[in-house]
């Protein structure tokens, strides 16, 4: 192995500019003459628009739905049967369905002036009763978010299992009601769009912070009835996405339309309040879940009614069906049991649409399932990890098809958990618990284990009937005339370090010096079509494509090199950036120079296809890769304040073959930090009128350096049998495990008091109320 190829912890190419503050984000583009846009957003959760009054002096700079009559609404359909469609107009037309919905847009030389104009626009609403709670939304007399539906259910998924067969006889039965919070994704950079119309070329350029440039291109073209080719989407450096930038946002369509309409470049940068209250919501679930087990804690059956609060509209391209579909299919986790019943509904409410956040639905299902595993363990009187060990899929069962027909591709799940138990040192913790803490805090330890399906392909996603289904992933690898390597991919890094890892892949195959390999991404004008970066797919898919293209390029270069060496093409190979024959070698630079600049030195028939390869790749099986991880948390709960401190945190992760272990560690640690936020801090509560109550960082808490402990990441490495190098998707798992591990740890601490908590986030108030309720029910003072 080269020290810069596959498996090497190479320093990231992009960090030179990131660490020096020289990244180029949307807001860094200075487009001369650009106007600024501010939106008028709905102040009511549910209402009919009677009138939008624009003062005369602002005619021509304020635009409403009437102006956008020819713009198509965002329709994220799926062909799943029973799915009820929602059309989200770019600017609200007759009705508003959540606080923050776009009603009008105002253009001015500066953002402050645009906001001044927005202040003068008076919207007259006939207020309607809002649907705020997802469970109340299903009651017969609930108001309707979309009247034509007849109810508030986007879609419901069923998994039918014969629970009755075991329900009666099961020695242990535990049921829990679990709620996860509506939270926000909160990447460091929000959304932002610069739109510019070139009247000469009839060409629209959108500079936008997106994970999927081509999907935005497709969506904008469709809404504005333009051809794809007349929309260029540039996604420059992107400061975190986590799913929030994996969709078409109405602002992108609105700005695109506006640029054409006013004939000037226009810019909108999302502010923190827009982000928190009107845009980036995610993760709100409810579970009523029951586990049945025998007296040894062996899980016999799982029964669940799950609800996802999907908000008012279906987002493009993932649709509002995604999250509930994930819940129903992923809930069984890494466990081996055969009777499973689940009903998972995506419910519409008068809140902003929820979007697919890192580890879509998984942090919730992992929490629900692991809370049940702990409850079973307590009833059975067995250590929680031991109950898990008794139920995990064993290595000798691999490859394994689970109860929802997920194809686990390999690994040793029990060993992962055993390593986590050893690393956190469970016996020492149990001893320490018996002795008690000098400061009166209560110690607790918790475990979670899950598998993470990544890089799902056609086989999985076609069934979901989405408008955008990934197939072959393309990469273009080019030898330049001076022998450098240029890679073009349609996936887009928003912090993952693809400029480094994809270069490592090409370096592994071509051996070209690492510094002479350049990865280009984020411009529909020069990268091949892609559905973008999401679902932990980029290294598996784009990495696989780069490997494939590099090999094809190596073949072409070998033929030219063999001619230059006057050797038999079958006897040369590409090593360390050279075509090497028996006795001599030529560099790829010499090969390139010969083909591009000195063709007279080559026979005319040599390599008409050139030194640029674009090819597609998909894994031998595209049912998705299954990485997996065990998380272990040691916490101290302060019974006087309800605060939780994480004292130790261990992740044992198996992501198959790691291209750059250092980057994977970063992914795991960053994800874990987000998972800690999900568990302890983050929530956007709503009042009874559907008003979001956390619209600034004063009210919306995200974990900072002092809330995230040193996360110890241990690796196992079971290569996937289906992918290039054995890679597996690993981008999301970090965010999946923490809520379950931390909740289980807190409950381990509280169980002596007879208290249990599981609604997220675990606020001090929730913990203290649970303790108080437990002491009341035990008759203590």
């Amino acid at each position, binding site marked *: 192995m080269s020290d810069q190829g596959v498996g090497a912890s190479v320093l990231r190419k992009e960090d030179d500019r990131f660490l020096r503050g020289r990244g180029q984000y949307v807001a860094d583009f200075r487009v001369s003459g650009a106007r600024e846009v501010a939106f008028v957003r709905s102040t009511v959760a549910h209402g009919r628009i009677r009138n939008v009054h624009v003062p005369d002096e602002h005619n021509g700079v304020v635009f409403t739905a009437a102006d956008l009559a020819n713009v198509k609404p965002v329709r994220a359909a799926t062909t799943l049967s029973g799915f009820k469609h929602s059309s989200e107009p770019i600017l609200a037309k007759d009705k508003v369905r959540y606080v923050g919905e776009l009603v009008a847009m105002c253009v001015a030389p500066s953002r402050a002036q645009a906001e001044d104009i927005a202040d003068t626009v008076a919207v007259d609403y006939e207020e309607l009763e809002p649907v705020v709670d997802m469970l109340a939304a299903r009651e017969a007399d609930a108001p309707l978010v979309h009247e034509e539906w007849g109810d508030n259910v986007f879609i419901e998924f069923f998994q039918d299992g014969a629970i009755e067969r075991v329900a009666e006889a099961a020695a242990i039965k535990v049921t829990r009601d679990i709620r996860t919070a509506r939270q926000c994704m909160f990447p460091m950079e929000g959304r932002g769009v610069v739109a510019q119309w070139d009247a000469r070329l009839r060409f629209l350029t959108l500079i936008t912070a997106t994970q999927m440039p081509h999907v935005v291109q497709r969506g904008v073209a469709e809404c504005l009835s333009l051809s794809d080719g007349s929309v260029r989407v540039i996604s420059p450096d992107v400061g975190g996405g986590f799913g929030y930038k994996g969709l078409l946002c109405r602002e992108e369509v609105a700005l695109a339309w506006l640029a054409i309409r006013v004939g000037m470049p226009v810019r909108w940068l999302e502010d923190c309040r827009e982000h928190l209250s009107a845009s980036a919501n995610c993760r709100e679930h409810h579970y009523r879940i029951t586990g049945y087990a025998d007296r040894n804690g062996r899980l016999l059956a799982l029964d669940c009614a799950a609800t996802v609060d999907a908000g008012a509209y279906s987002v493009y391209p993932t649709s509002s069906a995604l999250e509930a579909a994930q819940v129903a299919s992923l809930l069984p986790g890494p466990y081996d049991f055969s009777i499973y019943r689940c009903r998972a509904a995506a419910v519409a409410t008068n809140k902003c649409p929820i979007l697919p956040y890192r580890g879509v639905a998984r942090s919730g299902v992992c929490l629900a399932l692991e809370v049940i595993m702990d409850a079973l363990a307590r009833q059975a009187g067995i250590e929680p990890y031991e109950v898990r060990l008794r139920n995990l899929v064993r290595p000798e069962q691999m490859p394994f098809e689970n109860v929802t027909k997920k194809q686990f591709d390999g690994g040793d799940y029990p060993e992962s958990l055993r390593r986590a138990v050893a690393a956190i040192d469970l016996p020492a913790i149990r001893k320490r618990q018996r002795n008690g803490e000098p400061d009166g805090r209560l110690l607790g330890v918790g475990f979670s284990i899950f598998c993470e399906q990544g890089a799902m392909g056609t086989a999985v996603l076609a069934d979901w009937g989405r408008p955008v289904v990934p197939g072959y992933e393309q990469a273009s690898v080019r030898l330049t005339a001076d022998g450098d390597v240029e890679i073009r991919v349609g996936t887009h890094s928003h912090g993952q370090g693809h400029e480094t890892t994809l270069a490592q892949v090409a370096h592994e195959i071509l051996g070209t010096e690492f510094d002479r390999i350049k990865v280009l991404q984020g411009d529909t004008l020069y990268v091949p079509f892609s559905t973008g970066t999401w679902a932990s797919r980029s290294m598996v898919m784009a990495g696989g494509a780069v490997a494939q293209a590099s090999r094809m390029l190596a073949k072409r270069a070998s033929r030219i090199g063999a001619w230059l060496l006057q050797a038999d093409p079958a006897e040369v190979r590409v090593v360390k950036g050279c075509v090497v024959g028996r006795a001599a070698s030529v560099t790829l630079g010499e090969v390139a120079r010969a083909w591009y600049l000195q063709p007279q030195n080559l026979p005319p028939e040599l390599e008409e296809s050139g030194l640029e390869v674009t090819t597609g790749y998909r894994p031998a099986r595209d049912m998705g890769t299954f990485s997996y991880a065990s998380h272990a948390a040691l916490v101290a709960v302060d019974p006087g304040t309800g605060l939780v401190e994480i004292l130790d945190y261990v992740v044992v992760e198996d992501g198959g073959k790691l291209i750059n272990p250092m980057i994977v560690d970063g992914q795991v640690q960053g994800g874990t930090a987000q998972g800690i936020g999900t568990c302890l801090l983050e929530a956007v509560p709503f009042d009874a009128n559907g008003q979001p109550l956390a619209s600034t960082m004063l009210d919306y808490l995200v974990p900072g350096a002092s809330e995230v402990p040193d996360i110890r990441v241990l690796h196992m490495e079971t290569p996937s049998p289906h992918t290039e190098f054995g890679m597996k998707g690993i981008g999301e798992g970090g965010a999946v495990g923490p809520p379950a591990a931390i909740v289980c740890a807190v409950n381990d601490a509280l169980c002596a008091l007879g208290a249990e908590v599981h609604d997220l986030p675990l*606020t001090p108030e929730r913990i203290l109320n649970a303790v108080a309720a437990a002491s009341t029910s035990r008759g203590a003072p």
Partner: protein
Amino acid sequence: MKPARFEFARARSLGEAVTILRQASGSAKVIAGGQSLGPMLNLRLARPSILVDITPIPELTHIEEDTDGLVIGACITTSDIEDGRVRMDRLPILAAVAAGIAYRAVRNRGTIGGSICHADPSGDWLPVLCALAAECIVTDGKQTRRVPVEQFVAGAFEVRLETAELLQAIRIPRPSRSARCGYYKVCRKAGEFALASGAVLLDRERERFRAVMGATQGRPIVIEDARRLLGAIPQRGMAVRLHEEATNELLQGTGLPVNGRVHATALARAAAQAMA
């Protein structure tokens, strides 16, 4: 999130500042560090016609220590206090409290006077200064009046300051040599506003035992004589346990979350610090 239009004036003297305030008849806002006002302007929750920057006024950055106490100008920043540019041997609590306020960037600009005038119940200076029996020195440009901090604060985000008055300084009485202070706040994350806080001054020599609960829904809850909570002036090393009946009586009707239990914890821990 950009502010609505406003005028801006930089006042060089107390007189100049007061004149501008009077002329604006209530539509002006005073700005010092701007750490709370800035966001309020950006959110358009505050829409003053004019902002008056008072930081150039010499009296407001004045510090004076005498045998009776310490006078800290209103525009002294939290970092000034944290870094010991305001020194008082008998009040090491000030630097300790300062170091725990928000983040360094906020402390570099945020002022002690601004914090008091903003009167956010969750702020740090209010409960601490109440415990220390500090006074506000208020000026109308000609005369000054002195008012105890707990009376200066009328409620959440509300102070008793006339249109043409400024908070000039804070005066903290000098405690005795043996006096001890304690301050404990409960935050969900470092640097955030407190969920609950407690501040205690225990001055055995002067028989003074003041306790304050902060981060309430309104004004801090000041307990002039904390003996009713803790029995008597406790001895060093004694375990701190709040008197249950007195605590319940104190918390009754305060509307604090979880029946004020977190506030009671904060106060007990502040007392424990003072007695350690």
